[in-house]
């Protein structure tokens, strides 16, 4: 049997409604070529063009290119074989309603994902907090249906895009600098200016990531029951939180200890009525 005879044989083997084994084979070849082309196009895109784009945008463009080529290949296959989908339209309409109800949340997540990509409240690598869900961490990606955040404990949490889109999002990386704050109480007998000078000097000497401009700020926040409470506010580069906030109180305590300034315990003065 020659190859031509073999192909003729296949063209005569009808499966259903005029669809022959040969047309199915041709369709398979077209689809395979489409998938290979899609993979190559995606590869070229990621190698040459994606590095210049934000990571989320690049990922989504990659998906559009990949699935776009596959859909085109499928359309080429159906049109080349003269497959008519008009019969499916009525059934498809009913089916679409059913599917629509069943996949409401899926579609909602998809649409939210699109809006997240347009609005860009945060981008890949940003440190964010979602107060409504008590989630803090690094945004790994905004996908088609969900977004992923790596929490500070190393675990990764997946958030459906709908919830992510409708939540308050606090970005820790949107600004160039951040502010660290601490409150300390000094005894009433100690001089406030001396205490502030001591703290300012210790910060200057031992906290290299604290900005000189704007300078550290000191506010006498409260004349408390047991102490004069001073709030200390320092600015630092946004990525160096760990070099400021966690050590600020240590530095303040050391400064006050060096200057002999007392941090008082809670105390109460009791007057005897007879006196």
């Amino acid at each position, binding site marked *: 049997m020659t190859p031509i005879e073999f192909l003729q044989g296949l063209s005569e083997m009808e499966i259903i409604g005029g669809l022959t084994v040969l047309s199915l084979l041709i369709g398979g070849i077209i689809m395979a070529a489409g998938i290979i082309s899609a993979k190559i196009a995606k590869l070229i895109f990621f190698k040459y063009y994606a590095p210049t784009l934000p990571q989320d945008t690049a990922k989504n463009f990659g998906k559009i290119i990949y699935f776009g080529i596959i859909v085109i290949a499928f359309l080429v296959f159906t049109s080349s074989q003269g497959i008519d989908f008009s019969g499916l339209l009525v059934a498809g309409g009913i089916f679409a309603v059913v599917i629509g109800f069943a996949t409401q949340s899926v579609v909602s997540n998809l649409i939210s994902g699109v809006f997240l990509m347009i609005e860009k409240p945060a981008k890949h690598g940003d440190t964010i907090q979602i107060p409504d869900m008590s989630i803090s961490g690094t945004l790994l990606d905004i996908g088609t249906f969900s977004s992923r955040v790596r929490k500070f404990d190393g675990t990764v949490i997946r958030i459906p895009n709908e919830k992510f889109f409708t939540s308050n999002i606090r970005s820790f990386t949107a600004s160039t*600098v951040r502010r660290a704050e601490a409150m300390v109480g000094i005894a009433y007998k100690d001089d406030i200016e001396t205490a502030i000078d001591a703290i300012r000097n210790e910060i200057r000497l031992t906290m290299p990531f604290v900005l*000189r401009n704007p300078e550290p700020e000191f506010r006498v926040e409260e004349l408390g029951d047991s102490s004069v409470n001073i709030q200390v506010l320092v600015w630092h580069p946004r990525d160096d939180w760990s070099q400021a906030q966690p050590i600020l109180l240590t530095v303040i305590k050391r400064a006050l200890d060096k200057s002999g300034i007392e941090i008082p315990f809670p105390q109460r003065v009791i007057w005897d009525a007879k006196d």
Partner: protein
Amino acid sequence: MNEYTVDSSYSKYGQYNVDDHLELILPETIVKIERIGEHAFSYFRKDSEGKVIEKMIPTKSNELKIELAPIRPLNHPARRTGYVFLKFDKEIYLSQNSAASIYVHCPIEIGIFLISESHRESLDWITCDPLNSRFGLYGSPDTGTLCKYSEVTLANDYSDSTPYLDGVMKIIVENNLDSGKTVSKVVFSITDNSLYYENSKCILDGIKVTLKKRAVVNIADVQTDPIQTDWKQSPTWETSTSKTTMEMGLE
């Protein structure tokens, strides 16, 4: 900084060959390079903050060539920006359509480079003035520019640099506004400014600051003004950037 005195025993900038052992002494900093075997050297550095760095350097030959040179002040305490914020100790007043030329002490760091056949590789960097190596913000927290911040004094001329701590930079300020203006700071990307050294002195490419009006806002364009000198140019590894525009105030 002005009370700083230079010990003549400090190592000068320049190239050094290491056959067996080399000790570089800088203010409160010591660097030791020793041959520890065939084609291998050890590197030890202790700085003014007591921080110790130790490295091993495999080499192709039994000789090592290094260069000690001033570099841009961008690495301590960490590399975060390419911008420098110089706050003048005295304000400069410029009347309308006038220009002035000043010299300032610009902070520097010191780089140690490995010299191979055609290029230099950064091995380490040091600051001899860590307490004045700090950050500052130009502008507001959300849109401002993070800079290395330094309060600088005026210098007399190019020979006035403080060894190992600063280099002298010329700043030309030109006021094209229709009113007098006080300038107390300048912010610019220093990655385009080369450094040059001779013995233990350093100078930098200058900058030209042009005060002008854009729409209703007074701004300052800052551009590099290269100098012609026969001093040796320091190696560099940073990429250059274009001009800086100061849009968030000059005072």
